[in-house]
Structures are given as C-alpha cells and as structure tokens.
C-alpha cells in the first residue's frame, strides 16, 4: 500500500470515528432543552441548588458511583421499574443540569436516580450515611462516620444533630460535606414526565 493511501485511510478512520462519536452524539442530544410541565408550570428537569451541586462532588469523591448507578432502564429487558427505583426510564434530558452527568458503572447497591422521591427525609439519609445498618440490617453499604463530628451531648441537642446517638453520651453533627451530599440526594427526584419518557 502506498504511504499516501495509508495516510488517507488513517485520516478517514479518524474522521469516521469523530463523526460517529462527536457529531452524531451532538446531533442526538446536544440541543436538548428543558420543557414546561403544564401541571406545575415549572420547567423540568429542575435546576439543582448550589448545595446540591457541591453534593454531587462529594458523591463522586466518596466513591458512591462504585456501587450505585444513576440511570433507570426499562421497562423492556430490565427490572428497574419493577423494583420501584423510579416511575419511568432515565433519558438524556434528565442530565441537562447534572454537571458532570454521572450514570455510574456498577450496581452493587440500588439505583439512586429517584432517591429524593423514595427517601425524601433528610434525617433518614443522614442516618444512612452514618451507618446504613441503622435503617436496614442487611445493607452492605459502607459507613461514613468521617462525614460527622462526634461531640459530647450537652443538656440540649445541637439543632442539626442526628436523632440517633452512637452511645447515648455523644451526638452526631453532620459536616458541610454531609449536608451537601444529602441535598444532592434529595435533588435526585425524577417524578416528572418528559415528552420522550412519560410516567408509567
């Protein structure tokens, strides 16, 4: 093969790869915009708060993605909806304001795309972060005690202290990271319909 022909073939292969991955990808999802929910008169997907945005970083830094995905599949060829993880499948529009868009790679725990709707109480999420076995004995999720300050319990509990105590003598005060992580988890609420993914 002549060198010029080999070079042209290599450049053609690179161009084809770019078209397939970048150009077609942009054409498919690059121009997506939020849509108006006529019931609530709000646009969806909702824009997460600044604290939730910080919490997404904490979520990534704590390695939660090693076991939890953020993408619901189905209803065909998947039991995600049957398990009650969400009311509809996840679509590209759900990730418009998720920067970076984290889908996860493995599932050893449940999918968290809709955890904000499934477990909206901040106290429960905090307790799960401190020790998942407090809420579910069979949970295999690791504990995250470093997200909480352990302080001696005074005559009055701190306003944001958890309602559980590790030993009765101490109270657990969530750190800024724990609060941001819980805000992020609460923001993961996909109970709204999209044109391409209606609620089941």
């Amino acid at each position, binding site marked *: 093969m002549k060198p010029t022909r080999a070079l042209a073939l290599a450049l053609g292969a690179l161009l084809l790869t770019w078209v397939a991955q970048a150009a077609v990808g942009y054409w498919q999802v690059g121009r997506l915009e939020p849509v108006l929910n006529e019931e609530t008169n709000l646009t969806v997907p909702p824009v997460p708060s600044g604290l939730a945005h910080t919490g997404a970083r904490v979520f990534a830094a704590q390695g939660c993605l090693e076991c939890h995905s953020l993408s619901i*599949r189905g209803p065909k060829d*998947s*039991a995600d909806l049957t398990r009650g993880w969400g009311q509809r499948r996840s679509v590209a529009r759900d990730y418009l304001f998720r920067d970076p868009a984290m889908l996860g790679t*493995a*599932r*050893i*725990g449940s999918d968290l795309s809709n955890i904000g709707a499934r477990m909206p109480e901040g106290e429960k999420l905090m307790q799960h972060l401190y020790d998942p076995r407090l809420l579910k004995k069979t949970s*295999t999720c690791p504990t995250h005690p470093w997200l909480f300050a352990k302080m001696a319990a005074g005559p009055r509990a701190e306003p944001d202290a958890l309602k559980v105590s590790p030993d009765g003598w101490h109270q657990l005060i969530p750190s800024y990271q724990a609060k941001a992580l819980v805000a992020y988890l609460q923001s993961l609420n996909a109970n709204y319909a999209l044109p391409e993914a209606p609620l089941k």
Partner: protein
Amino acid sequence: MQNLTEGRWEEIRRNVALRFLSVGAWSYAVAYVFLAYLSLPWVRPVMAFTVAWPAFFEVFYFLFLGSVLAGSIYALLPVAREMGWPNSSALTWHFWCTTLGTATTASCLLLAGSFQGLALNDAGVPVSTLASYLRPFLSVVIFAQSFWLVGQIAFTSVLIASLLRLFPTAAPMAVFRNPTMIRPVSVGHLHG
C-alpha cells in the same frame, strides 16, 4: 495471526519480548470479541452495570496494553541503553504471574458479572444479596491481583538490576531458560 506465528513457536516461546507481544496481539483480539459479545442486544441489558465491564478493561488495559508495553521494553531497552537482560527466573515469574493473574481476574469478573446481571434483572432478588453473590469471585480476584503484583515486582526488580548493571547479562534479547541447554561441566573439560 496464524500466518505470522506459524513455524515460529519455538522462537516466540524462548524470547521474552516476542512472547509478551504475542500475548498482547491475542488479547487485543480477545478484548474486541469480548466487547462485541457485551454489545449484543440480548447480552447488553443483562451485563449493563455489572462487573463484566471491568473484565473487558482488565483484558484491554492489563493484558493487551500491559503485555505490549512489557514486550516493547524487553525489545527496545537493550538497543536504547546498550544493555542486556539477565537469563533470570524473574522473567518467567513476570510473564506467568502477570498473564495468569490478569486472565484469572478477567474470567472471574466476567462470571461474577453474569450472575450479577441475572440477579439484577430478577426483581425477586433483593439488592442486599448481590454482594454475597459477588464475594467468592472477588476473593479470587484479590488473589489473582496479588499474583499480578508479584509479576510486576519481578519485572521491576529485573529492570532496575539491568539498568544499574548489577549482574552479568546473558543476552541482548531477554530469553527464558532452556533446560536442554544446561549440561553438567566436567573438571576434565575445564582443564582442556
């Protein structure tokens, strides 16, 4: 591939660089057959979000790229640094520990991923039991990774020793020991 290697097995078997490059070439083919398998329409929904995907990366990064990198170092470093490789058992340790360690890891992850995927797609299986399905396989993976690490330590040792010229080198190209070449040396032979 068959044409390239036909009639050259003895050379490939003896020469460390060729052996690593040969493993690299085969694992490249295996990695992409594996990727095609994972992308099949009836396999993809089962294997998504399972440890079968890390199995592909294990084959691609560690078996293909790792072997090609090791083979290249064994072939190019003597030319670049005017040095030789020792006829050391560390070469054998490097080859077998890294290759078997990575292959075992990938096989276990693929098996574990299959069970994980089938369990995930069965709504009757609680998520909290998934870890118990994976645990035996991941225990073997830890053992296989330790094996891989032993191979890497052997390689690092022989590389540093060769760069520092700590022992006399046997050949400009690294070769495995050939037992048939080792013969007892008689005193009479030494005195001529």
